[in-house]
């Protein structure tokens, strides 16, 4: 025996019980409250289609709201709570809404949009308060979620007798087979129906499938069918709320199948009659499942209402279990059911039920035109069968109408999918039309949608079934219309005076059953994204406890505070060290490409908009790259390492984009060139040493005279080969040291020791930003924002006059050099600090003429400065504007100046 709790009371269950079976075993009929009217609801089904018995299972971060009690298997310690009730399930204050049902009919909340907005503000509070069923947990889910790929020749969905046989045939013909079953046992319908194929057949067949290499997954639902026969499976490794044995609670499978066989069976339909939603009204096959599979008899005095033969099996099962079959209401004319041995009423359809909150008390019916009543505590209904065609439709298939079964069945398909078994050949039924009052005749139990709601929607002009669905909320929420769609279509067709197939069909969308958000997130559920990219020197940085800055997928040190410094204090100290002495920083994330071959220079002159082939060996230059439309999309430096070997660097943020661009140019535009362009971004770790003392520090490190500005030499530091590039982003004399990342720690340590010896400091991204803004250097994603041409950024003098680079043609368009374009400017604060991102306006209330792309403080002299884009900015130096940020409530008066606030002549980085 297993113990579990429901609404705070401890009960016992038997091994293999679903929560629904266990509740019925303990005599609990009332399990939930309906969404809108808070009507008492019990257990209607024994499967995933359950609309009523929705509970929250689990506690803390593991709590799973809106779990179907029919789709969770009891484990020791399971905790379940009913939902949508206050203060408790038996006495729910919300049930008073039932009295207001006439005002809460279909589409009532749309009608609250009528009138003034003020009225809606009033309604909104109450609508939001009432919305939803269970509450989402506020704690993080402690479990893990796996996502796994799988490939197979044949995927069989549904391990009923047809599915198992199909899987066996495929596996034994040498195919890779995956068989999935959403239940926790194979062939549950055989257990329900006690057919000739018994447990021995099930076990033997499963064994043969596995022996032939097939994979069988239980507690696994095919939740979506996508393009190219990709099917997603959701596998429950542990039950909702259960602590998973291996840490993984659920697995999302992405299965690419050669062929898909759908053996998904069908779902029994309820019937529409007044008060058909009471606890004690249950689907006939569900009753049979509880009796045969779980050994639970859900009622002692039973009325059965049917329009088909299948329900007679339930009658027999109940009788064998000791229940009294009071009456069988068969909608078909005599002699249907005549030989069943039960008291059968033909031409009989249910009219209504009476009962209490927890149970059913009586059933009334119209029998051959006359009303009759029976005392009963269980009403088992079977209104026919709806084939599960969801996956077939998601695969782009079409449906045919089966008149005998009054159901849609799979027809053609655009993908390699076949439907077999009950889903392809549903049982024949007798067509019946509801005769009861439509007001309490529920068709969508979960959303409290009645026949009267469909009638109202029709009366208000809703003709399309898709509009009807949205207006009434029919077919939404966790059951997605599994029980309700056919009833609604039938009613709509009746109103339209057409056959059901002509009434239309709603769209079947994934997932087939609800999927938890954690499963969709997979391993990223904890980090909300992909892996963080770690610097090669991560451990060395981490030891100094820096403030980290996310930069794309990277995390880089933003500053290294000491002695309780704030970010701003630390960054200013670090920047001053660079201006006054020497600093060093990690620049490993810069994009780097090694370009080799006799045509390397020609290739680079296609990528870069500047000249390259005039570089002497050992020299480098600033460069930038254009998109085909002529706009700047990245910048960097290019260095000639050897006769036929170059190193190209570009921005960190644009690294992946640049790699794609270079690959595109190499593979598609220039396949004829004798060149190899290899992404070496991660091969080389990079260390920048900058400041007035940088040259002396480097000389000590490499034991020779460092290269002059924009020159490169190979060297060794701490015995490790390095490449030294003399380039400056800070505005000071500076060097970038590139080293094989696997040996970078030794080089960093040697550099740091020397920098410390010189009284310098490490600096992070914040100080780097101060330095480059003051110097007027661009950053991709800031000043280079995809809308600026080389002219706009005052880079046009560097363009390769011979042309031939990507973007040259686009750049020649006259509009790109006309007046009125935004141009790069500097901004000096006259009063106040310049807010980053502020718009530039000539006066209060005027239209923006530009914006601030980056703002900082003068490192030594103090005062707020910024870079920005301003309409016709080159010709507006000296103008006074307002930098206004209404979202932050900040404003500053600024003067437009040249975008160089420090060493405009560039004397500090030249010897």
């Amino acid at each position, binding site marked *: 025996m297993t113990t579990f709790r429901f609404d705070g009371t401890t009960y016992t269950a038997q091994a293999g019980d679903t929560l629904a079976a266990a509740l019925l075993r303990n005599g609990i009929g009332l399990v939930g409250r309906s969404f809108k009217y808070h009507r008492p609801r019990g257990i209607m089904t024994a499967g995933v289609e359950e609309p009523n018995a929705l509970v929250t299972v689990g506690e803390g971060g593991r709590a799973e709201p809106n779990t179907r009690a029919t789709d969770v298997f009891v484990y020791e310690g399971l905790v379940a709570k009913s939902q949508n009730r206050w203060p408790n399930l038996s006495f729910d204050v919300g049930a008073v809404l039932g009295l207001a049902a006439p005002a809460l009919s279909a589409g009532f909340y749309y009608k609250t949009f009528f009138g003034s907005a003020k009225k809606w503000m009033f309604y909104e509070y109450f609508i939001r308060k009432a919305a939803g069923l269970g509450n989402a947990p506020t704690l993080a889910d402690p479990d893990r979620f796996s996502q*796994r*790929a799988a490939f197979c020749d044949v995927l069989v969905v549904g391990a009923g007798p047809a599915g198992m046989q199909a899987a066996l045939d495929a596996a034994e013909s040498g195919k890779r087979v995956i068989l999935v079953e959403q239940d926790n046992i194979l062939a549950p319908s055989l257990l329900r129906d006690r057919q000739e194929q018994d447990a021995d057949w099930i076990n033997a067949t499963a064994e043969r499938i596995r022996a032939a290499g097939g994979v069988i997954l239980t507690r696994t639902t095919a939740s979506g069918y996508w393009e190219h026969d990709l099917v997603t499976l959701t596998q429950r490794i542990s039950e909702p709320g259960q602590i998973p044995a291996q*840490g993984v609670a659920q697995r999302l499978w992405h299965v690419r199948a050669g062929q898909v066989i759908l053996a998904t069976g069908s779902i029994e339909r309820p019937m529409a009659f007044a008060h058909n939603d009471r606890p004690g009204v249950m689907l006939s096959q569900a009753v049979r499942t509880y009796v045969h599979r779980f050994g639970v008899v859900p009622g002692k005095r039973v009325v059965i209402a049917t329009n088909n033969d299948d329900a007679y099996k339930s009658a027999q099962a109940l009788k064998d279990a000791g229940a009294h079959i009071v009456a069988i209401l068969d909608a078909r004319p005599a002699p249907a059911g005549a030989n069943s041995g039960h008291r059968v009423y033909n031409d009989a359809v249910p009219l209504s039920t009476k009962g209490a909150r927890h149970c059913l008390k009586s059933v009334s019916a119209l029998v051959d035109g006359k009303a009759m009543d029976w005392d009963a505590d269980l009403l088992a209904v079977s209104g026919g069968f709806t084939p599960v065609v969801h996956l077939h439709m998601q695969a782009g298939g079409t449906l045919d109408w089966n008149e005998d079964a009054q159901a849609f069945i799979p027809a053609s398909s655009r993908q390699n999918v076949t439907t077999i078994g009950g889903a392809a050949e549903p049982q024949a039924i007798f067509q019946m039309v509801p005769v009861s009052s439509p007001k309490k005749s529920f068709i969508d139990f979960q959303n409290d949608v009645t026949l009267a709601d469909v009638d109202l929607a029709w009366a208000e002009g809703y003709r399309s079934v898709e509009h009807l669905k949205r207006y009434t909320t029919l077919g939404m929420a966790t059951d997605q219309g599994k029980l309700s769609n056919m009833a609604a279509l039938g009613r709509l067709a009746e109103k339209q005076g057409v056959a059901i197939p002509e009434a239309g069909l709603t769209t079947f969308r994934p997932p087939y059953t609800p999927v938890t958000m954690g499963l969709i997130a997979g*391993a990223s559920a904890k980090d909300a994204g*992909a892996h*963080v990219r*770690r610097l*090669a020197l991560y451990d060395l940085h981490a030891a100094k406890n820096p403030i980290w800055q996310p930069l794309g997928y990277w995390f880089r040190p933003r500053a290294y505070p000491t002695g309780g410094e704030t970010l701003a204090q630390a960054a200013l100290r670090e920047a001053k060290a660079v201006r006054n002495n020497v600093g060093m920083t990690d620049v490993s994330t810069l994009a780097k490409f090694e370009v080799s071959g006799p045509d390397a220079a020609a290739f680079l002159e296609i990528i870069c908009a500047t000249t390259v082939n005039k570089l002497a060996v050992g020299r480098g230059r600033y460069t930038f790259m254009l998109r085909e439309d002529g706009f700047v999309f990245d910048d960097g430096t290019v260095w000639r390492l050897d006769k036929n070997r170059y190193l190209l660097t570009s921005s960190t943020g644009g690294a992946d984009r640049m790699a794609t661009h270079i690959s595109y140019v190499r593979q598609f535009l220039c396949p004829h060139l004798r060149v190899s362009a290899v992404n*070496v971004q991660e*091969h080389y770790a990079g260390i920048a040493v900058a400041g007035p003392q940088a040259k002396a520090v480097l000389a000590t490190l490499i034991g020779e005279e460092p290269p002059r500005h924009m020159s490169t030499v190979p060297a060794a530091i701490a015995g490790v080969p390095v490449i030294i590039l003399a380039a400056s982003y800070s505005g000071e004399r500076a060097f970038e040291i590139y080293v094989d990342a696997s040996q970078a720690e030794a080089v960093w340590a040697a550099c740091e020791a020397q920098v410390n010896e010189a009284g310098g400091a490490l600096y992070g991204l914040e100080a780097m930003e101060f330095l480059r803004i003051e110097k007027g250097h661009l950053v991709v994603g800031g000043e280079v924002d995809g809308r600026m041409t080389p002219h706009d950024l005052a880079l046009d003098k560097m363009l390769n006059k011979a042309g031939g680079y990507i973007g040259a043609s686009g750049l020649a368009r006259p509009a790109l050099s006309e007046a009125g374009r935004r141009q790069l400017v500097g901004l000096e604060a006259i009063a106040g600090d310049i807010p980053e991102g502020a718009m530039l306006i000539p006066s209060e209330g005027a239209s923006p003429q530009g914006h601030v792309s980056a703002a900082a403080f003068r490192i030594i002299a103090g005062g707020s400065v910024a870079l920005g884009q301003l309409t016709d900015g080159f010709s507006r130096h000296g103008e006074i504007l307002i930098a206004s940020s209404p979202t932050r409530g900040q404003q500053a008066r600024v003067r437009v100046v040249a975008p160089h606030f420090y060493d405009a002549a560039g004397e500090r980085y030249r010897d």
Partner: protein
Amino acid sequence: MTELTISTLPAAPLHVLEIWSNAASVAKRFKAAMGFALPATGRSGGNDALRLIRFEPTVWLVEGDTSALSGILSDGGAVTAIGGGIVRLRLSGRGWRTLLMEGGVFDAESPTFAAGCSAATIIDHVNVRLHVVDETTCVAYVPLSFSQGLLHFWEQAAESLVG
């Protein structure tokens, strides 16, 4: 229980070899000098001193001593060092195929993905190159910056396989 061990191999020189022209004559010179042919796409070839794994039509990943390659290539191609940016993770035990399906998109469970085969694929958003050494060993070449994250991902996934 699935047997599986994940270990990080020591840093070693790795290169990219790209042939841009005269592929047939370069291949001929290569075979004459090295004693084995340049492997086909999706395959590896070589010996203890030098192993090439072909991941793209004109590109091979090279492990080992590359000193002879420049001469063989002449003006027909180039060799570029990339080893600093790659971490080699060895997946040992029969569970490696299942492990690679976690967060993967490639059919590592296919019997045709056998010893000597290679593949370039994405696993949990990370670009990974795979080389099947033998039925119980696969080496994954992982970008350095993603290696810690992927190793952690694999170690967690392995727990649920071997537990």
